[in-house]
């Protein structure tokens, strides 16, 4: 049965340093994406851009419980996951801009950011694409006797694709160290997920595949942190996979070019009123934190600088288009 974590209790148990760290991560994600959106609208960023504004609590609350050796897989809306796992904003911006020095040398863009050096095994342009990869990574780590665990982020739209069933069954079967995180923002692209999803939902689906878990208010980062801490402790203990179901809300459209006129404005206002960052900020102020504004300002400043740097950065050498396809049988010219 899903347990509901109450934020109050967990929050009071949290020390100020941890809350501050969460706040720092969340404001950095927010600033990153707001800056990226502006840059995209200004024509500085090519291709599609999927932002997760409003969902920052999930990435921050989960990843604060991970070590560098732990791995994550992500989906098409992965900036927050990458930043929370420790990827550098500057190299992410370079990648968004398609410049030299970006994480993928300009080959990936927003939808394919990865930083293997911090255990971020990549965003993915295919819905559920990260699920089989995550369970395989966990299987490999187990084989190598590593202590690391894997966190697999996906959206509520992903639970209607076959690999969801296959991957959870697989992880439970081989008792793999995976935390599945369903970021449930209620929509899949432009469609309300409830309108295309039968049955009682992701928790029941997971339970039927042998994966138990916890459902949490994803906009309450303290609750997310507590639930993730609890579940990851279980996963590290070797009990097999677990699921974290985080209910959240996406403030914006599907991509940066989707003005989201189709969204109910009342719903959007309500979500903004319950902003996860504002909620944490109140808590921090209540707990006597002095530097809250400074953190947000630093985040904004950092991202503005990243944007400018990316804008000024050189394009990749066109010849690099031929690199990193394969060692044997690589082509070198048109």
């Amino acid at each position, binding site marked *: 049965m899903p347990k509901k974590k109450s934020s109050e209790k967990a929050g009071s148990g949290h020390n100020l340093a941890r809350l501050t760290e969460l706040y720092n991560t969340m404001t950095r994600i927010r600033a990153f994406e707001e800056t990226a959106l502006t840059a995209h609208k200004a024509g500085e960023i090519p291709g599609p851009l999927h932002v997760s504004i409003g969902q920052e609590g999930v990435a921050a609350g989960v990843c604060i419980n991970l070590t560098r050796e732990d791995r994550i897989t992500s989906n098409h809306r992965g900036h927050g996951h990458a930043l929370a796992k420790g990827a550098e904003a500057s190299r992410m911006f370079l990648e968004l801009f*398609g410049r030299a020095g970006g994480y993928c040398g300009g*080959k990936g863009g927003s939808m394919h950011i990865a930083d293997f050096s911090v255990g971020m095994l990549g965003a993915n342009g*295919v819905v559920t694409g990260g699920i089989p990869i995550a369970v395989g990574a966990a299987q490999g780590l187990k084989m190598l006797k590593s202590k690391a665990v894997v966190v697999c982020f996906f959206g509520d739209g992903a639970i209607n694709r*076959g690999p969801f069933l296959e991957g959870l069954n697989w992880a439970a079967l081989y008792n793999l160290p995976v935390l599945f995180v369903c970021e449930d923002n209620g929509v899949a692209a432009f*469609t309300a997920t409830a309108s295309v999803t039968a049955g009682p939902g992701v928790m029941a689906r997971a339970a039927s595949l042998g994966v138990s878990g916890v459902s949490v208010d994803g906009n309450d980062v303290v609750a997310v942190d507590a639930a993730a801490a609890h579940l990851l402790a279980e996963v590290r203990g070797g009990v097999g996979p677990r699921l974290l179901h985080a209910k959240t809300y996406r403030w914006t459209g599907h991509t940066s070019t989707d003005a989201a006129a189709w969204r109910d404005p009342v719903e959007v206002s309500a979500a903004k009123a319950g902003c996860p960052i504002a909620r944490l900020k109140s808590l921090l102020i209540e707990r006597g934190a002095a530097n809250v504004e400074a953190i947000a300002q630093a985040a904004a400043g950092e991202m503005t600088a990243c944007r400018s740097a990316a804008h000024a950065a050189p*394009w*990749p050498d066109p010849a690099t288009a031929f690199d990193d396809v394969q060692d044997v049988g690589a082509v070198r010219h048109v």
Partner: protein
Amino acid sequence: MIDVTLVDAGRLAVQQEMRRDPRVWVLGEDVARGGLWGQYRGFLEEFGAERIVSTPISESTIMGAGLGAALVGTRPIIEMRIFDFVMCAMDELVNQIAKIRYMFGGQARPAVVVRMPHGMWRNSAAQHSQMLESWFVHLPGVIVVAPSCAADEAGLMVSAIRSDDPVLFFDPKDLWLAADRMPAGEIQPIPFGKARRLHEGGDLTIVTWSAIVPKVMEAVTLLAAQGVHADVLDLRTLWPWDEAAVLASVKKTKRLLVVHEAVEVGGFGGEIVARVIDQLGTAHVKVARRLGAPRLPIPFSPPLENQIRVTTEKIVAAAMKAARE
């Protein structure tokens, strides 16, 4: 003539056929909302939620359910959003749709249209830009359609919907929203397997299709300015393809250049070259060559993408070489 984009042309064709035949319907993600490009705009209002069915993100079942619905006598248009996601539904397409009539000795008629916008769509990177149309030419049991202009999008769509064979319909993503014109009034079906001659010339034959066609035509203008006159055939359908038209043209020009956006290695250009050589003999052909993309995934960054794209300049250079060699 009316001013339309290719999206409009496709929409008008589907709408006309849905009005004509109540068995025709559409299933796919977000289609009730009008589809990703508006190719089904207004359909929910006109045809209702039973005939314009927004589905879960379940590509295997979108494809497979379309087949099942065809087996009981409806005529589904299976919208796959973009071609790359067809990789999530290949068993249903390759092992079921393409083979079911044959395996069952003719009992099954999988009269589906599988709509798969394909190819580059600026800076969408490796998982949203693929062109693998040549794969399906190699797959028995299916028809492969790849239009490049509004009139063909419309006329071939009408044929596809009326076809009792399964039709793989590749909308050209990069041209999808380009301005174009087509005849007003009822859309007439365009038969499969007939190429469209885009330019007459005696110096070389250029065979091409899909999103690259406008670039080929730019190149042809530049070539003409330099005194090289190309015979240009837009195949429009890759299976069946208009071998007769290609052979007739190469008989005249003795020089063949196939231009496609997809990777050159293993692309459909090889098939065309091989057939032409086989049918005409090497003694009657001076040049037979292809121009396609290098064997690389599609990169994201504009200069990288440009580096590997088939451009007008590359087409001019290749055509020049083929004509003069």
